[in-house]
């Protein structure tokens, strides 16, 4: 009886995790690629020719602004895979955490971290774009 109740509780919370995953995924990853970051930087006339904290900051702000502002339901070809990937990532994280902690704690940790995944992914992608940029001669 208790086990059945726990399973139901797991599924309910899993529903919340999926909902948050979809929201975060669609908001941050409806048009997310290195090419988009570079393109948006070019449109904003940002320098991405060398790695510096100032360049990383401005590039990340510019990319986040674009991702958060755009029509998220107008998905680019790579977006469905990325959005589904985020949802799967959160679900797997929830299931793994569930092995160690209670369902509610697992759901709290996953949903708490969800917005930071979008920020972290954008920051990492911007670092990569700057790191591989050829220094201007």
């Amino acid at each position: 009886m208790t086990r059945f109740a726990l399973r139901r509780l797991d599924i309910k919370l899993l529903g919340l995790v999926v909902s948050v995953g979809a929201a975060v995924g669609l908001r941050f990853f409806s048009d997310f690629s290195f090419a988009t970051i570079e393109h948006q930087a070019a449109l904003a006339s940002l320098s991405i020719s060398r790695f510096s904290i100032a360049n990383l900051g401005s590039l990340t702000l510019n990319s986040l602004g674009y991702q958060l502002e755009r029509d998220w339901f107008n998905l680019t070809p790579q977006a469905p895979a990325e959005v589904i990937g985020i949802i799967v990532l959160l679900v797997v994280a929830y299931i793994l955490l569930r092995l160690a902690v209670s369902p509610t704690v697992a759901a709290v940790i996953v949903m708490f971290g969800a917005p930071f995944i979008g920020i972290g992914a954008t920051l990492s992608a911007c670092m990569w774009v700057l790191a591989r940029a050829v220094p201007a001669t």
Partner: protein
Amino acid sequence: MDWRNTVLVTVLGLTLGCLYFIAIDLQAPTYSFTQEQNVVGGTAGSPYRYRVLVPFVLEGLSHVFSFLGAPQTAYLGASLVYDCLALLFQFLMLYALFRQFFSPLQSLLGVSFVSGVTVLTLAYFTYQPWSILEVALFALGFLLAYRGQWVWVGVTVVLASLNRETGVFLPLALFLASLQDLRPLGMTTLRRAAHRRETYLSFALVVMSAVIFGGLRLVRGSADPVDELGNVIVRNIQRNNVIAAASAIPLVLGFGWMYAALGFRRAPTFLRGVARVLPFYLIAFAIWGWWREVRILTSLYPVLVPLVLVYCCDSSGRRRALLTALHLRRAPRRKA
């Protein structure tokens, strides 16, 4: 006070505040500044001219940030501080409201869920800073009413009415919640209901909110609407907007919509009562709102998310009740 959870809620509030600033204020800083100046100067169109609370707060904050340079730069600095503080206030108030009915962990679950789905609402608008505060004021109003602190509820209703015309939904929700049982519907039942303290106080607050609504129009003068109702309706039923709204509205709470509906019947009386405001708010949203702009639905967080938590946390609650019942049954036996 749950300090650890308060710190976590603070982190979420400040993070979402920064995201809001990047998504909204940093996108069109000149437009936002002009809008704010128009409201403060009394030249904005209707209804923005009458949403006075936040623009005047931002104006005051801009003076504090005047050391940053030009007025627009100072305004941008003020916006960043406002966005962060307002979202922090919103999340703290939601947490405090949830704590009236749920454990600290369950309340944190509710706030984490809200922070996750709020990310989706940061789109399709430029200058709407009052929406952040509205959620906080609704949550605060419900919390104070639940605790019976009606003087402070009155203050909250005044602030909500000065903030946005939809502030009237706060006292309306409390009024509807105070009408516990009107069956059998008749004069005696209605008279009995009217004599309840919560009923006449909340009704007085509805009237007060309506007076503020009218007073603002009287003091600040009549203004042409920013959007004619006909235009709003035509825009809403355009194919692109219908598709966007049909995707955004379900996604803004996700499974939460279903959970809230399922949790309604099992919810505490107060939560069931304030949920009666939902049809009224949704009808207003359907008529005057831009459907894809789901930011407008965030005002329903204090009503809907507790119902979501009721459904989600029901199993553990039932288990605890079962354990308590078993314990109570065993206790007399031990004594005997």
